[in-house]
């Protein structure tokens, strides 16, 4: 391989893995498209391009097992592309299997290992499709056709131009890359007619034609050789093309001079493109193209193994330091820089204001001294005034003289005052400005971590396909709002819950095609996954048009499992939410996919860990809908500040339903529980002061903050409400995380530390207590 692409280069590896991931996603998506529409050319081309890019990339970082395997896949894809093999369902299955192997190979590499499993069976399966399709690799030759008929020139579309290294050395390709100015470089191999009386002119004639259509970067044989009086049967022109292929095709057809040509896209180093086989466009038997392999393979398997081992140890060394990479739109960074420069300007303003204040202070001191002196003078004059008064001077006159003495002293601060006033105004506006900038800065930094939800949505088409195939159901997956952005850390933790929900929907929700048809529904069930913003929340919905949730079954199950008391009357919503309880599964039989009892409770836990909530709504026979609400980011939440004793606590506003001011007499006792009535609801109360062991203040009123998620509600009794504020969550160190009901801590504006309440934990706590007490009582009753 080349010496300037170090396969152990960390950056390169990172890029490779990121890119490979993208290619795999593209492959998967398009293979699925192909399954639906086997004739979809775009999908085929895209699959091709992705596989080829992947192969090229793998070669560059010397992941030979990957490159080799992908190569076989690519051969098959090429056959599909040239319509020698049709994309039937079993072929699609095989392709998907192959894709899984590719994924595994990549995963191994990410961990610094080399995939060693035997893939020969799959390989031969892949090859068998090629054989069945009557395709030999490499290329079969295009049958010769008589010259001079432009119609025989196949006009190829841009995206169908095959590519390879074109037999050029790495260095030559580097040169081409430099010269091409970022454009694609094509190798146009033109065949010349030797019977032309001036056959040595052709090379130059074509050169003159081509230089009108693009930039000819290089010829083979070289230009000087062409200019000499020699005939060359084939001349290769390496060039960028600025016109349509149709124009090129027409111009390249010069009577008596050319007999045919082929176009090949040159893979430039660093930018692997498209595919590695040539497509001959010719009207002469002279056009026989050999495939140029892009990946150099060691000659013996022994070598290969050694190379793999070497790569493996190297990769192991590196993998530890390969962290997770976040790709950020450079515009976002620019925006941040912009804001930072604004804060710098703002800082300058503050400095200026500080100077004005200092000056004001100095001035104030000076004036103050003047005032003291004036007062002293005045006081000294007082005996004189007395004397004059006693001597019988006119009091009016005297008063006027005294006034004259004092008046300048009264005005002594005016100047300083106005100066300070303007400084204060300036300070206020600058501070407003600063808070605006900080707000934007905050948002900007958060946006850096935002990634589109398509990152996880994109995995579902495959999942749904596989699932529906195993379960013999027909499901049409619709994705909506894939551009909706979410914090990266949230997105990573969201995948499993979503998979769970989707599995549930397909397994339990959507009915068998026959059944659907018999009740007049479309044979194909539809499953929609959508995401959108709602204020500072993200709402993700998964809904299907299946059979919905049977409330009665749920109630029965819940009673059976001891989750609810048989006499308890449940609303539908309450019943639906029971399925989120641990150990709940309504599936009649345990299938491989879902129904193992570990289920939706995990989903709820996970979502609540993300400060989100999940709820479900269903209509029997019409389908069910899961709604997940998540905060935009984990780091900052809107909180309701409440005071308990001397401490301030923060309750995440997302779980606050409402708040009430109550008199101590409004609290009733039922079953040893403190409860209070809100309209028609009875809500049990939890005294935070008791929970956290604080001494509560005995005020005239008390405040209840009603918190909850779904149907679970609870009132938290606090001393007073302070207000709403954005708080930054600081996670607590391990030693303190054991404290129940605390999600984290935050620092308030005045520097005090305040604890953030974990509502879902409190609810669990309350529920557990309730259940424990009920069980105790039931035992007693027996």
């Amino acid at each position: 391989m080349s010496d300037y692409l170090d396969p152990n280069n960390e950056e390169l590896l990172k890029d490779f893995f990121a890119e490979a991931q993208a290619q795999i996603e593209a492959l998967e998506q398009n293979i699925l498209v192909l399954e639906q529409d086997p004739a979809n050319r775009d999908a085929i081309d895209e699959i091709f391009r992705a596989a080829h890019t992947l192969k090229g990339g793998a070669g560059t970082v010397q992941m030979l097992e990957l490159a080799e395997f992908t190569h076989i896949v690519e051969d098959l894809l090429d056959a599909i592309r040239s319509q020698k093999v049709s994309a039937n369902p079993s072929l699609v299955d095989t392709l998907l299997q192959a894709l899984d192997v590719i994924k595994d190979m990549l995963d191994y590499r990410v961990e610094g290992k080399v995939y060693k499993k035997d893939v020969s069976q799959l390989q031969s399966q892949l090859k068998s499709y090629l054989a069945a399709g009557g395709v030999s690799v490499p290329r079969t030759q295009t049958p010769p056709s008589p010259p001079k008929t432009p119609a025989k020139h196949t006009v190829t579309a841009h995206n169908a131009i095959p590519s390879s290294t074109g037999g050029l050395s790495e260095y030559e390709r580097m040169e081409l890359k430099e010269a091409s100015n970022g454009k694609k470089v094509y190798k146009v191999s033109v065949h010349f007619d030797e019977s032309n009386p001036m056959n040595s002119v052709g090379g130059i004639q074509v050169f003159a034609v081509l230089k009108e259509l693009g930039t000819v970067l290089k010829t083979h044989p070289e230009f000087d050789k062409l200019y000499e009086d020699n005939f060359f049967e084939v001349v290769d022109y390496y060039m960028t093309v600025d016109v349509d292929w149709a124009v090129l095709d027409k111009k390249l057809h010069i009577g008596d001079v050319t007999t045919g040509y082929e176009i090949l896209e040159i893979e430039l180093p660093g930018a692997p493109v498209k595919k590695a086989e040539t497509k001959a466009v010719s009207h002469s038997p002279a056009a026989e193209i050999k495939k140029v392999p892009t990946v150099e393979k060691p000659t013996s398997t022994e070598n290969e193994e050694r190379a793999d081992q070497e790569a493996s140890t190297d990769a192991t060394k590196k993998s530890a330091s390969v962290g997770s990479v976040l790709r950020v739109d450079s515009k976002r960074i620019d925006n941040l820089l912009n804001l930072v420069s604004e804060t710098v300007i703002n800082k300058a303003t503050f400095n200026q204001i500080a100077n004005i204040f200092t000056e004001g202070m100095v001035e104030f001191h000076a004036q103050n001294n003047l005032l003291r002196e004036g007062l002293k003078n005045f006081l000294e004059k007082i005996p004189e005034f007395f004397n004059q008064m006693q001597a019988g001077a006119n009091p009016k006159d005297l008063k006027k003289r005294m006034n004259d003495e004092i008046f300048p002293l009264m005005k002594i601060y005016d100047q300083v005052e106005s100066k300070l006033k303007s400084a204060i105004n300036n300070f206020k506006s600058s501070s407003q400005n600063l808070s605006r900038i900080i707000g934007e800065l905050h948002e900007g930094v958060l946006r850096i971590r935002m990634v589109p939800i398509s990152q996880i949505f994109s995995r579902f088409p495959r999942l749904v396909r596989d699932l529906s195939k195993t379960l013999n159901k027909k499901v049409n997956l619709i994705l909506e709002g894939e551009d909706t952005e979410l914090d990266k850390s949230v997105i990573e933790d969201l995948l499993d819950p979503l998979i769970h929900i989707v599995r549930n929907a397909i397994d339990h929700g959507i009915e068998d095609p026959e059944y659907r048809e018999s009740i007049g529904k479309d044979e194909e069930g539809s499953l929609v996954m959508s995401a959108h913003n709602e204020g500072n929340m993200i709402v993700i919905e998964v809904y299907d048009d299946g059979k919905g949730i049977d409330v009665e079954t749920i109630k029965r199950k819940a009673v059976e499992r001891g989750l609810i008391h048989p006499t308890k009357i449940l609303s539908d919503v309450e019943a639906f939410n029971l399925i989120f309880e641990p150990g709940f599964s309504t599936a009649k039989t345990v299938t491989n996919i879902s129904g193992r009892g570990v289920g939706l409770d995990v989903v709820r836990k996970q979502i609540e860990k993300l400060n989100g909530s999940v709820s479900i709504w269903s209509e029997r026979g019409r389908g069910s809908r899961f709604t997940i609400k998540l905060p935009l980011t984990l780091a900052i939440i809107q909180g309701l500040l409440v005071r308990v004793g001397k401490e301030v606590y923060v309750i995440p506003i997302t779980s606050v339903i409402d708040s009430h001011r109550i008199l101590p007499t409004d609290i009733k006792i039922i079953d040893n529980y403190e409860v209070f009535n809100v309209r028609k609801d009875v809500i049990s109360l939890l005294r935070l002061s008791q929970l956290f062991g604080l001494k509560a203040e005995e005020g005239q009123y008390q405040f209840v903050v009603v918190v909850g998620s779904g149907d679970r509600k609870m009132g938290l009794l606090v001393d007073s409400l302070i207000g709403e504020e954005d708080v930054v969550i600081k996670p607590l160190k391990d030693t303190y995380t054991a404290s129940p009901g605390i999600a984290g801590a935050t620092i308030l504006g005045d520097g005090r530390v305040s604890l953030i309440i974990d509502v879902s934990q409190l609810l669990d706590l309350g529920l557990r207590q309730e259940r424990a007490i009920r069980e105790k009582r039931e035992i007693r009753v027996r």
Partner: protein
Amino acid sequence: MKTKSDFPNLNERKPDGVKDDGTPYRVLVVDDSVFVTKQITQILASEGFEVVATAADGEEALNTYKDKYPNIDLVTMDITMPKMDGVTCLEKIMEFDKNAKVVMISALGKQELVKRSLLLGAKNYIVKPLDRKKVLERVVTSLE
């Protein structure tokens, strides 16, 4: 008198020398040999081209081209001529009008000059001795 309607031409075809608007392409034929000039003129006229001028050397050709500009659609240019050779003349014409369409007429053995001409902007070349079909074919492709 026979009229068109009596013998309708079943394969009616627009002659190559006529533009879409029905007017003929206007050609300047440059050659020091009167024989070749006439030959080219005849061949072109047979397909409806109109030879609007002829020139016997490069200087005359250049002046004629400038005089008649932009009323010349195509130039056929002999390479070996007195006073100013065809390649120099081509160069000058291209300098004057970079969209000029010039077809070189060359004898065998002048490959090097033909190559130079092509690089200078000549659209095509015709090798003597002239063959009607080839002349027309190359002139037509040069006009595209």
